Each structure stands twice: as C-alpha cells, then as structure tokens.
C-alpha cells in the first residue's frame, strides 16, 4: 500500500497550457506519519492561495515565481514577496510625496507608477497592477482627480494583498516542509 499520495488541485484560473494546480502538488503523507494539524494547515494554506488567485488578486505569474523555488532557494517565494512589499511601500511613499510636492507633474507621477506597475506584474499582483494602469491612464489624460482616486485604490489593493499573502505564508510555515514526516499524533 503506497504511503505517499498526491493531491493535484484543479485550476481555478484557466491558462492555455499550465493550470495553476501544477505548482501546488501536495504530498499527502500517510496520515499516521503526518500530524493532522499539519495536513489541515497545508490544505488551508492552499485554499488561501486559491482564494487569492480566484478573486484575481494574483495571476498565473505568481505560479511562475513559485516554480523558481527549489532546494537551493527554499524560501524564494517568501523572499520575493517580502522584497515586493518593501519596494512597493517605498515607491508608494514616493508617489504620495510627489502628488503633494509636484502638483500636475504627470510625467514624474507616471514614472514612479510605471516602476510600481512593473513590480506588481512580476509577482502576479494583478488587481494592484490594474489600478496602477488606471493611474497611468489618468496621468496620460492629465486628470488629477482620476490619479488621486486610482492611487487610493492602489493603496487599498496593496494592503489587502499584503494581508492575504501574510496569512498564506503563515499557514505555510505552520504546515512545515511538504516532505516532512512527524511522529504519529498519539
């Protein structure tokens, strides 16, 4: 009787070639070797991730980032996400200051937002990226109010995404490494 099985999750964001589920292979060890708590944590963390993807917070690009994680870089995804939030926080602060100090300087505003958009795109932060694009459209139209409104939405999406990813990584940490076996729960 095999002691290892795999649960391959169905994609909820369809892509032509690569369903998202391919990057969330869950080695489900024989329950007697993995604590129930870990199993629940692992399932819950994947549900959390599916929800983030399903509601459009993250797109397939996030899977590309996950694919880059390996034994040599076991925390790569979390490191990238941490860098993203640090860098995006800085960029948003620059934009906020620019909106105040340089009124109607759409070129400057757009340059800062272009960097933030690029960052969002790289990690698959699709909703945030869309709001960045709205801001840039408003810059192109010389629409100050539009810029202000979009920027508030960018900040909101940033905060929500941070919350979701923090929960996701917290659950992953609780779940522990995928291949880890533990003493049977007595």
């Amino acid at each position: 009787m095999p002691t290892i099985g795999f649960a391959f999750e169905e994609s909820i964001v369809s892509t032509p070639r690569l369903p998202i589920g391919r990057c969330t292979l869950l080695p489900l060890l024989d329950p007697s070797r993995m604590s129930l708590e870990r199993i629940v944590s692992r399932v819950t963390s994947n549900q959390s991730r599916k929800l983030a993807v399903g509601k459009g917070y993250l797109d397939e690009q996030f899977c590309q980032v996950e694919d880059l994680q390996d034994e040599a870089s076991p925390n790569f995804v979390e490191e990238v996400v941490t860098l993203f939030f640090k860098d995006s926080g800085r960029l948003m602060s620059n934009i906020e200051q620019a909106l105040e100090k340089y009124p109607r300087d759409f070129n400057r505003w757009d340059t800062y937002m272009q960097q933030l958009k690029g960052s969002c795109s790289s990690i698959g932060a699709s909703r945030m990226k869309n709001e960045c694009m709205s801001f840039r459209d408003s810059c192109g139209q010389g629409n100050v109010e539009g810029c202000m409104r979009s920027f508030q939405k960018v900040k909101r999406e940033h905060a929500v995404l941070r919350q979701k990813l923090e929960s996701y990584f917290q659950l992953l940490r609780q779940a522990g490494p995928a291949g880890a076996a533990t003493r049977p729960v007595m």
Partner: protein
Amino acid sequence: MAFQTQGSNLRALLVEDIKVNRMILSQMLRKFQVETTVVQNGKEAVELFLGGETFDIVLTDNLMPIMTGPEAISKIRAMGATDVMIVGVSVDANSMEEFKDAGADLCVPKLKLEILEHILQETRSKKNKSSA
C-alpha cells in the same frame, strides 16, 4: 520541469532597474546555470562593455533611469558587439519596435522559463557555430 544546461557556461548580463524583477530574472537564469552579471540601468551595461567585458546574452528592460534599454543596445552594437544575443524584455506594446530599431535580436513581453530555455538554447547554438 527539467532544466537543460548542456554544459551551459553562458554568460548573461541582466539590465533591470526594478529590484523584484532583478531577483526573479536572476533566479530564472540560475536555474539554467547561467553566469549572470546584474546592473540597474543602460549606462552601467554600456560601461561594462566599454571596460572589455563580454557576454553571450544581454537581457534588458526598456524604461530605466539614466539610460533606457534601447539606448544602451544602440551603443553596445555601435561598439562592434554584434555577436551578443540581445533580448528586450518589456510588456509595453511600443517597446518592441524601439528594441528592434536599436538592434535587439528579440523582444519578449514577459520572460517565462519555457521561453528563456529556448532563448538560451538559441544563444548556445549561435555561440557554438561562431566558435567552430
């Protein structure tokens, strides 16, 4: 996914101002065991070539502070670096023409592992042919 290296030893120059992008693209290249140098704008890239550095492939963003990707590509090509594979990476629809006009071999909107694998194979073939 199995990452083919075929005795890689390719040397890449990554030109990218956004930190997150640098981290991700560097990791992609590491997967293929490509020796990678990273700079943050076109000017730094040009300076490396001026200093006599050679690369098999250059991967560059378009819009960067100080010097853009296409500006850097024009200068690199003007120096006589015609063999190096240069790939522009930008989601901006207008970038493709700018990159091509500057002398890039290829422009891709997003660099995915599968695409990078093909580009590196192409680069390797080109390198093998020119050293034969």
